């Protein structure tokens, strides 16, 4: 399949996806199918949902350290896919979990940090959903294209 042009991609994926990065993944696909990128993207969906669940648990347990680690974990994969909004949200969670403010200064009040994590987690979940919809649409659309072709 030929790569869709940037405008088209952007209109489908929204501003939560960095196209340069994401296209790198698409370039790794064999000509004619999206097997590789599909497996990566849908693998990421699984990973993200699982991580969000673990974050919810950690939030209930007020385990800031765990939240920070989970934030770091999901930050890595979302960044690799170019999902910049999710990535930024994860970085916030990572920082708040480390009891830091966004500028890296320490925030001694654990309750403040927990509240911030909670807020950031809600935001990142909605960013994720948005991007998930976009990506699913993109792959559906690809299928349609191929069907049509």
């Amino acid at each position: 399949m030929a790569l869709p042009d940037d405008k088209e991609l952007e209109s489908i994926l929204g501003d939560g996806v960095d196209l340069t990065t994401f296209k790198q993944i698409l370039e790794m696909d064999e000509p004619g199918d999206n097997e590789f990128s599909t497996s990566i993207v849908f693998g990421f969906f699984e990973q993200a949902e699982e991580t969000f669940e673990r974050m919810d648990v950690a939030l209930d347990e007020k385990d800031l350290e765990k939240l920070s680690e989970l934030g770091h974990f999901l930050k890595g994969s979302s960044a690799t896919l170019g999902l910049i909004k999710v990535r930024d949200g994860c970085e916030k969670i990572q920082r708040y979990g480390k009891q830091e403010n966004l500028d890296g200064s320490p925030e001694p009040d654990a309750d403040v940090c927990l509240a911030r994590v909670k807020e950031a987690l809600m935001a990142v979940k909605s960013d994720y959903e948005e991007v998930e919809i976009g990506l699913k649409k993109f792959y559906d659309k690809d299928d349609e294209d191929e069907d049509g072709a």
Partner: protein
Amino acid sequence: MSGTEAAAAQGGGGNNASEFVRKLFRMLEDPSHQDVARWGKDGDSFVVVEGEKFTRSILPKHFKHSNMSSFIRQLNKYDFHKVKPSTDGDSTSPNGNILEFKHPYFRVDSKDDLDNIRRKAPATRKPQVAEDFTTSQHVSVISEQLTATQQQVQQLQELFADVSQTNRLLVNEVLTLQKMLNAQKQAQYEMLNYLSPYNHNRNNGMMGHQMNSNGSMPTAEGDEAVPELRRARELLSSVPADTVADRELERLHDIYESPADSATMVTPVSMPMMHDPMNDISRYPVYPVGQTVGIDPFHSDHINKIPYAIPNEGSSGPMDQHQQHQQHTPQPGSSGQMNNAPGTSGSMDKPASLWGPKKPVVFLVEDDPTCAKIGIKFLKSMGCDVEHANNGAEAFSRVSTVGRDHFDLIFMDIIMPRLDGVSATMYIRQHCPTTPIIAMTSNIRPDEVNGYFEHGMNGVLAKPFTKEGMLKSVKTNMQHLLKNPPSQSDNGHGPGFLMNVPYLSTTGNSIKFESPTPPAGASGSNWSSGHMSQNGVDQSFGLMDGSNQYNISQNRGGYSTMDASSGRISDHDSPPEKRQRLNNSQRNYA
């Protein structure tokens, strides 16, 4: 009264006669008072004629008292006997106030017999005397002990002073070393400033050589025209080597080395510092407990515990394996070049192969499935064979299983569960001293980057990595495997990164830093915003610090004085040693 006199009588005199008896004898010899007290007629007794006068004048003079009855008591004690007044006409004193005493051995003509005059019943007092004797024995023993203790205390004080002195020296020495280190960093900074722009005009090999010789630049052509170089040299020479302290340090070291010396007590205390941590790697405490998501090696809680102990299996094994390996592997230098039969691996080699006869084997250590999948895909698309491990522990056990030359390059995530990338690198380094290990991480603050190099890593690939960045890393770290190895500096001009510095590209296994190639034009979406762009230069010099060459020379400087005789310094210095020393100076940088 009588007691003291008895005691005096007992011990006194050059001859053995008692004092009392000799005084008595002397009194009778005195001619001045023959009218009061004198020898008896036969010389076997003595007579006190005028009791009252005797008491008043004679007793005080000879016996220092004036108590007649006490005098008589004394006589009785010495077994003198009163002689009954005789009725012969000799008596000149009609009033009968005459006292006469006698003792069988008390004779005017036989002074020697006085020795035989003893107090009666001395037996009653003997036990007490014996007691006094043992007590005095005790006292002398105790006082001896006291003296000995005092000597010990004094020795300890001296020892303590010695140790304090040593400690001071060590601290001073360390401080000097640190200063030198900083000066060298700055000096090299200056050199780099100078060398980078001249890169294209100069002979690479020669420049590389100059850099290697670490500051001893030839004084040839036109140095003065280059202020940076001059400043660099000034900086390097501004901290003179403190040879006095060095010698003193060596001397102290010698003292500590010989256990027979008086300083034995110090030895066990100071040895752990000199001790080679390599042999002891398993003693490092387990740090984060119960982690499942990822261990950040530079987390403040456990930065001092790197390397994190390898979890469960093989915690005792690695060192043995390592040592065995060291024994039958001759030279580290020539890692992948000659061995490894060509064409052992044949998977999809559609991209018109980048590589020579041997396809590189790359080890990707990454816990994140997405990153791992993409990384594997990228590497495969470059024509590499790829193996993957999910964490540091897995990676180490894999590296221990295969030969040391199995992998040509290792990409290592930093924060991973079970065993972090820095610790894993330190373990792997014991096994594979030369295999390039590239940190693959989003944690690229200068101090973090510095830390990676200090712990034996060779490069950093910033996350999120791009195919381009990864390719650059792959090429520069496996030049010897390329089909067309770059003849000179034609391997790209990464904007502002060390790729341009000549000696880096000529000495295959040194330092690389791959630009993450930020997403085109999207400035707002730059990864760790600010870090890369602002600190590019600083990071470059962080890399400098981490180069193997530099660290080895550091270690030589530090340890040749500390540990000169033990010969433990190796070209592949152990990570823990580095860590111990460098933690102190780590933050001096930038």
